[in-house]
């Protein structure tokens, strides 16, 4: 047997190793922050503004402090460090000092012996406000004369992308389609509302356990709020019941750090579902003016896209969405002439931040609707127009990035094509009051942060008992990165997954892996872990070669031993190697690093290389619309995703199932209305009975720079679903919906306008 074939046989890549920690999550025994907070902790609760925009004149805390059991009331003036945080723009106060900017802005904290006492104390804080004019519309916010929400003004940011000569192309076009699309504010609705606890350890460090997807960022911003060096704060991620982007922000961590630091006592905090709804970040509502031009042979000639985003009261990840929505506005298509402008404004709405897809789900709704409209105008099928325009090897994107590998969109389209044709051939029965429709949705998604450094680091160590420890800062929030990282390291070192001990998402023990966002952990942290494992492997083989007096090139690893493939029956165990190296003072802990190859975008033209690699997908939705009630039933979703390489296929499918559910909610029912959708009672997310079967087709166009060829799937899973459903509704009704969600009333309007075009009879 050759070394190569043995390696192949031992590979865990492409095998569905059970998720780390899955048992506890299934049997309900997994413990979350609020389950494990020390019993003697004081409770922290936040008083939140009920006004959208107001000047704080005074905060009277006397009565509150007299509440028996209330230990402290904290306000902005108690914050020792810099009272402004945020991952990109530091524009958000931990506790509002001079004014509040949205309903839910925190103005004071009560710290008390119980949650009830803390709440009682909060009710006795008297805040005197002077109400200011509020703005709830981004265009109004940027209009001259609008009151400023922030001192710097109401513009969050702008991204321009220019390629070719769009004006000329529009003049020569055979078909031009111009439409405006509107999406709404969405709540992440993760299973576990935000929670955490904090205490001082014996070294005088503040230790914060939290439900988070961003431990190293948390550490930096909490330290800055407290005016401390970063190493005085340690963040440890607990089991996290989902995040979808909202747990990238400081939700409880800053409050916990402040209360713990000032009171020198253990503290805990947990949001109610209503509080998580009220104050955590939301998906950006976007208004997208989209103009496309095509030639009569169905080729895209130009697009002109204007995106107006509402980022709410504070920036959070808003700037990332400004850029990403612009870069992805073409969709997975080659467009020679491009003019894109994305402008986001502050308003007094809830904070919009990161949410699975960073603006791409919104623009995908627009570009996929446009493709169907073009197809209709040109008399070609929706499938065909996508085939003709989809990116291929050698294509350039809107930012003039040339795609040199792993461009799987054509393969995804071909994978779903037979299914699409089969569903299309099903016909409606003549007098049916339920109309069938089928729709396509395609997408591309750049893996990792946009045009900026976003490295990851990891260490792999061989211990003296022969065990292997992987250190990674990556927070697994349920998506499965821990399992994938272990599979990568175990495969490289030729051991079973059970031989790897993972230490992760603890700023005291691990170095930064960056945020769990942008579908980046498999690709970027996977590469960092692989890099570390390779270095350790080299070191182990070198040690072994000396110990076995063998040709190093003939050595291979198997089950924790190094063996000689040249026929000599000799081997040495990892344990023996580790002991020898330790005795002789050589380190067996190696650091890995990876930073994707990107360049910043030009501020005027948007040209550059924002991402090192892209994921692609094509999905089909089959729907049935009841034309009397406007009820839409999604009958089936078929999802083809180019993930480069599925390191853990069941995990990939899990992401796709969950993404499809989120996409269905985005398409049909989710809409966050402040003050109205205050809990899951009125904010609807899909239930099991809303979900159709989802068939996953995993496409693997290997990414040469990815670990074993892998890219990412976390956000891509969601993006094509809503466009596919909306296109299917339009197919069924002959009439299109331009605002999400396609709720009963919007579908009813579409039914009536479809019926007026004589596509079907509406009379009862």
């Amino acid at each position, binding site marked *: 047997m050759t070394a190569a074939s043995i390696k192949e046989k031992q590979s865990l890549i492409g095998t569905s190793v059970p998720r780390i920690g899955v048992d506890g999550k299934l049997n309900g025994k997994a413990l979350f922050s609020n389950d494990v907070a020390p019993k003697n902790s004081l409770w922290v609760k936040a008083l939140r503004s009920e006004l959208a925009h107001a000047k704080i004149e005074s905060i009277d805390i006397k009565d509150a402090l007299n509440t028996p059991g209330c230990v402290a009331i904290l306000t902005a003036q108690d914050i020792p460090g810099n009272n402004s945080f945020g991952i990109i723009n530091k524009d958000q106060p931990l506790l509002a000092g001079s004014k509040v900017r949205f309903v839910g802005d925190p103005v004071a904290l009560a710290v008390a012996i119980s949650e009830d006492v803390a709440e009682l104390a909060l009710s006795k804080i008297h805040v005197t406000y002077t109400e200011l004019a509020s703005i709830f519309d981004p265009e109004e916010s940027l209009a001259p004369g609008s009151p400023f929400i922030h001192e710097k003004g109401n513009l969050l940011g702008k991204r321009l992308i220019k390629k070719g000569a769009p004006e000329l192309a529009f003049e020569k076009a055979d078909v031009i389609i111009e439409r405006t699309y509107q999406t709404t504010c969405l709540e992440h609705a993760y299973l576990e509302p935000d929670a955490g606890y904090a205490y001082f350890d014996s070294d005088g460090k503040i230790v914060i356990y939290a439900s988070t997807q961003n431990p190293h960022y948390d550490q930096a911003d909490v330290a800055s709020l407290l005016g401390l060096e970063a190493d005085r704060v340690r963040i440890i991620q607990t089991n996290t019941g989902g995040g979808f982007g909202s747990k990238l922000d400081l939700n409880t961590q800053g409050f916990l750090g402040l209360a713990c630091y000032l009171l020198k006592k253990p503290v805990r905090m947990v949001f109610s579902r209503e509080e998580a709804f009220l104050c955590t970040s939301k998906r950006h509502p976007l208004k997208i003016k989209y103009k496309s031009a095509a030639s009569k042979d169905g080729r895209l000639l130009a697009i002109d896209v204007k995106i107006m985003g509402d980022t709410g009261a504070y920036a959070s990840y808003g700037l990332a969405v400004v850029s990403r929505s612009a870069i992805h506005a073409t969709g997975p298509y080659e467009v020679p002439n491009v003019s894109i402008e994305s402008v986001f404004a502050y308003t007094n709405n809830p904070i919009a931040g990161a949410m699975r897809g960073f603006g791409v789900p919104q623009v995908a709704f627009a570009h996929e609707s446009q493709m169907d409209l073009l197809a209709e105008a040109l008399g070609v099928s929706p499938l065909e127009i996508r085939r003709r325009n989809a990116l291929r090897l050698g294509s350039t994107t809107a930012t003039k990035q040339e795609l040199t590998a792993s461009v799987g969109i054509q393969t995804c389209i071909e994978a779903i094509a037979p299914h699409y044709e089969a569903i299309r051939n099903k016909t409606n029965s003549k007098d049916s009051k339920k109309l069938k429709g089928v729709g396509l949705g395609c997408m591309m998604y750049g893996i990792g942060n946009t045009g900026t450094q976003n490295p990851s680091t990891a260490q792999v160590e061989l211990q003296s008992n022969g065990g292997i420890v992987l250190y990674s800062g990556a927070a697994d929030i349920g998506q499965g990165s821990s399992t994938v990282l272990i599979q990568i390291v175990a495969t490289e070192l030729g051991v079973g997954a059970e031989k790897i001990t993972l230490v992760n998402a603890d700023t005291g023990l691990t170095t930064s892996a960056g945020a769990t966002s942008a579908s980046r952990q498999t690709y970027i942290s996977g590469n960092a872990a692989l890099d570390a494992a390779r270095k350790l492997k080299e070191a182990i083989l070198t040690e072994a070669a000396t110990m076995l007096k063998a040709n190093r090139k003939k050595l291979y690893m198997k089950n924790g031993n190094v063996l000689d493939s040249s026929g000599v029956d000799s081997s040495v165990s990892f344990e023996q190697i580790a002991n020898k190296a330790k005795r002789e003072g050589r380190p067996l802990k190696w650091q890995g690093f990876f930073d994707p190859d990107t360049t910043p975008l030009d501020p005027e033209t948007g040209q550059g290389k924002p991402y090192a690699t892209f994921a692609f997908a094509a999905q089909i939705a089959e729907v049935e619309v009841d034309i009397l*009630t406007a009820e839409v039933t999604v009958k089936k979703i078929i999802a083809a995703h180019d993930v480069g390489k599925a390191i853990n296929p069941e995990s990939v499918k899990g992401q796709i199932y969950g993404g499809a559910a989120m996409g269905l909610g985005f398409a049909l029912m989710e809409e966050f209305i402040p003050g109205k959708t205050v809990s899951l009672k009125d904010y*609807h997310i899909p239930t099991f009975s809303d979900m159709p079967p989802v068939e996953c087709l995993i496409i693997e166009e290997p990414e040469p720079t990815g670990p074993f060829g892998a890219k990412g799937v976390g956000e891509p899973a969601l993006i094509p679903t809503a466009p596919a459903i909306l296109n299917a509704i339009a197919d069924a009704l002959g009439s299109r919906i331009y605002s999400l969600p396609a709720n*009963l*009333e919007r579908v009813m309007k579409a039914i009536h306008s479809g019926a007026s075009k004589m596509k079907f009879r509406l009379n*009862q």
Partner: protein
Amino acid sequence: MRLPKFEYFEPETLEEALRLLAEWRERVCVLAGGTDVLVKMRNGRLKPGAVIALERISSLNGIGFDLRKGLTIGAGAKLSDVTSHPDILRYYPAIARAARVMANVQVRNMGTIGGNLCNAAPSAENAPPLMALGAVVTAASLEEERRITLDDFFRGPGLTAMKPEEIMTSIFVPTPPANSGASYQRISARCGVDIAAVSVGAMIMIEDTVCREVRIALGAVAPVPMRALSAEAFLKEKVWSEEFLREAARISADESRPISDVRASLEFRKQMVAVMTQRALEEAYGRAIKR
């Protein structure tokens, strides 16, 4: 927020419960499942001094059927018992359906039919089919036991004809007449686990193609579940036809009095009253002529 402090009683007999009720009067809250009461207590909308749980009073939990008289459902019967009772499934499929489509498994395993009615939400799922089938509830106090038709029971959102010293003990539904059929239809903003935006219960009795009896009840389109009396009057004694059916549905929409809220607009609700009424009558007719 956790529950505020309160006294808690679990009487084993109705009499004991009624005595506690008389003793505590308006400071008390009766718990019949708790799926609404506990939510209201948690968010502070309800602050009772005492809670009387009815679950241990076994006389309130039974379901009995007598073909000559009718169906008696104990007010404390769980919704999940109503949906799975063989006689209800056979003779009162509309009642079984209403209890089955509401809420979710966990709530149906806790919530009771009496609790759903006494909570008196405009959208109470069980009300329309029970009204359509002529249900009468029994309310008991230490002094007397009285019967209230469901038509007279609802007085406003959260308000009923019951007195503070009374407890609902049972719901009686007469045996459906020969040649009759009933149906329950509803629409909500998503498939499952949502309050109905519009619901309709209907019962009709057909004799030689003539509609001899008809009762239509509408949910979630007025401050209380309401009868569509004009639509009923229009259909009564008419020979069954598609055209009359559509007209009755239209009249029923006209007489509904919905509001706009987060679930649906006034206009959409009116439209759906017509669609749901027509569907309910069609299904009821299909069942009537099969009998």
